[in-house]
């Protein structure tokens, strides 16, 4: 299973995990990452957020990321769900689920996918704070995190 969805509806984490597990008794490890909206960013209280994306390219970019993970590790399933539109603090923004026979592949692939997604998938966040609205700047740590994988 390789499946990617970009949606404005809230994420149903439990339903997605159950769908990935299915009845595949060869899966020994399921690693899930949930990225959640925080109420503080760069020192300012954030009230809400709008997530914009490049429809069409987003799905292609995520498919490339998933294919690359499947080439590097023996995976049984990969599922990505990314939310777009209006969000509030504590809302899940992104869900990445990776299933494999053993845990080391599942952990590595899940982190790899998130590191790539942060650098390669065309999403942009705009935050609303007491001082007004602002576009979120890319973190240097996200650029560095992707660099880790290039020579592995």
């Amino acid at each position, binding site marked *: 299973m390789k499946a990617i969805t970009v949606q404005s509806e809230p994420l149903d984490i439990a339903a997605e995990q159950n769908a990935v597990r299915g009845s595949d008794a060869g899966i020994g490890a399921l690693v899930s990452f949930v990225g959640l909206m925080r109420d503080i960013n760069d020192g300012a209280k954030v009230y809400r957020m709008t997530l914009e994306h*490049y429809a069409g390219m987003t799905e292609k970019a995520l498919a490339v990321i998933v294919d690359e993970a499947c080439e590097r590790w023996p995976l049984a399933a990969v599922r990505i769900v990314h939310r777009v539109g209006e969000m509030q603090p504590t809302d899940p923004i992104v869900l990445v689920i990776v299933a494999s026979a053993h845990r080391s592949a599942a952990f590595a692939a899940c982190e790899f996918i998130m590191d790539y997604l*942060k650098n390669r998938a065309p999403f*942009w966040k705009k935050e609303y704070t007491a001082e007004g609205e602002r576009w979120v700047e890319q973190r240097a740590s996200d650029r560095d995190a992707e660099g880790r994988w290039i020579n592995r």
Partner: protein
Amino acid sequence: MMQIIYFGRLREQLQSSGEKLEYSAKSGSVRGLLEQLCQRGEPWASALDGRATVLVAVNQEMAGAETALADGDEVAFFPPVTGG
């Protein structure tokens, strides 16, 4: 014709989510297209002249300044991505 698209901060700076542009030899590469757009003056010059990081995708794949362009291409300009 080429379809040009702007996202995020760029869309707001240019007050445009995109435009159709006649294809010409001058816009035969991403670099050429950028020069053409900047020659319009403000707000294009400030938004696209390289002082801020601008990324580009051609036909929905990440590209660079030297990427060649052809008639019918979809070219998107945007700031560094911040999803996840």
